[in-house]
């Protein structure tokens, strides 16, 4: 138990510090690097919670695929040469504070006020088997088949949309 606490505190510190560094760095490429580190620490925390599949998916999808595209765009567009977004319009700054505050209140509500649902017993949720691919796959294809297929259709629609947009540009 003690080992778990030590690992959790280490990972949580890495996640928190890297999250702060993401928003304070002036160079977007360095920000992206710290965001990848943040995703990595988050994957470690998922592992501590026995959610092996979520942890690996976090690395493959977020740290591996999405961040590569982010970096790709940053490197090609070179946003450090663009005009600063806050100096162009002061209204954006106020808006950013409002949205940040709303998200902060949401997080406080989730962490301190909402209790985990009663329907799931803690033994099942904490067992080492709870986060394996087999368990998640079975649940996805039985209990959550409708949301799963709906998400699939949404992704298909988005892919076709992207293809149409790309094709128009080249014609």
């Amino acid at each position, binding site marked *: 138990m003690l080992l778990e606490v030590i690992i959790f505190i280490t990972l949580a510190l890495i996640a928190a510090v890297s999250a702060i560094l993401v928003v304070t760095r002036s160079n977007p490429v360095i920000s992206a690097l710290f965001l990848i580190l943040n995703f990595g620490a988050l994957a470690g925390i998922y592992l501590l919670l026995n959610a092996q599949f979520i942890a*690996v998916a976090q690395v*493959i999808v977020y*740290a591996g695929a999405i961040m590569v595209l982010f970096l*790709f765009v940053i490197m090609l567009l070179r946003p450090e040469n663009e005009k600063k977004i806050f100096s162009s319009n002061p209204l954006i700054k106020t808006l950013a504070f409002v949205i940040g505050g709303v998200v902060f209140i949401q997080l406080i509500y989730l962490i301190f006020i909402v209790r985990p649902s009663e329907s799931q017993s803690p033994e099942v949720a904490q067992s080492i088997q709870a986060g394996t*691919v087999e368990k998640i796959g079975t649940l996805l294809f039985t209990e959550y088949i409708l949301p799963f297929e709906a998400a699939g259709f949404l992704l298909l629609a988005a892919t076709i949309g992207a293809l149409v947009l790309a094709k128009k540009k080249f014609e």
Partner: protein
Amino acid sequence: MNYLEIIVITLVKILIIFTIMMLTVSYLVYFERRISAWVQNRLGPNRVGWEGVLQPFADVFKLLLKEDIVPLVANKPLHTLAPILALFVAFSTYAVIPFGPDITVFGYKVSLVVADINMGILYVLALTSLGVYAITFAGWSSGSKYSLFGGVRASAQMISYEVSMGFSVAGVLLFAESLRPVAIVEAQSGWMWNAVLQPIGFITFLVSAFAETNRLPFDLPEAEPELVGGFHTEYSSMKFAGFFLAEYANMIIASALIVTLYLGGWQIPYIELLGLPSWLTAAIQVAGFFFKVGFLLFFFLWVRWTIPRFRYDQLMSLGWKVMFPLSLINLVWVAVLIMIFKL
């Protein structure tokens, strides 16, 4: 077994695998030079030691003695981080690949894999997807246009071929009904190697492995005639050696992965029918694994010195218009196979 025994056994396994990897990497460089010489009807390095067998050590000393040059406009922390990241990814991937069956040493039952985790194959995919960053950051942090081009090319190439790679692996996983590499090897007993059952998936995975390791004919990120040295143009001394080591270590990983997924891993068909003592069977199986990996490594070198480099648009259209549909066809074929064998 208590915790201490598990930790000691794991550390010993890590040490053995690390030593084998380092030795194989350094001799792979030597064999690359000798085989390229043989293909091109030259002699190759043959002066240091008998037939040049000490050449790898001479190379290492040369690289250690060179000056480490960092360009003025480079981002220094990232410029140092990139080769470290490349080596980290290359060496930590091997943890989940089994190289032999369970054996008994001094009364302990030892499985010949560092970590037999049930997410094994996903772990490999996760680490290879992180491998892109080493090259991308190397390209960007050097502050040179050739490096940047190399890095951007590498990331585009690697994420394109990861798609067909992932779909080919999905076929293997569906048939083995597990993500554990050990279970995948055990599912390929007898003649039922995945290379025989799913030839299309085997070919798409093989081609994707070449693209993922940036080897010729897909070494566009470091194409010399266009990009000087590509992403490692501005690297010298041991930092350059880091990338060099990582490339060869990645070849070993790719070969070991192909053997595990498609060529039956450490299994030799019908060897258990010979009735040999169990330690001899295990030894022959481990030797069989290393032989298969060795053959694939030779195949990597052979292809490099036989087939010319693709053009960049050819590479992309091959990846998206040929390999990706083929890997989808393979998935349908696996569904047919499952109907035949599993229902």
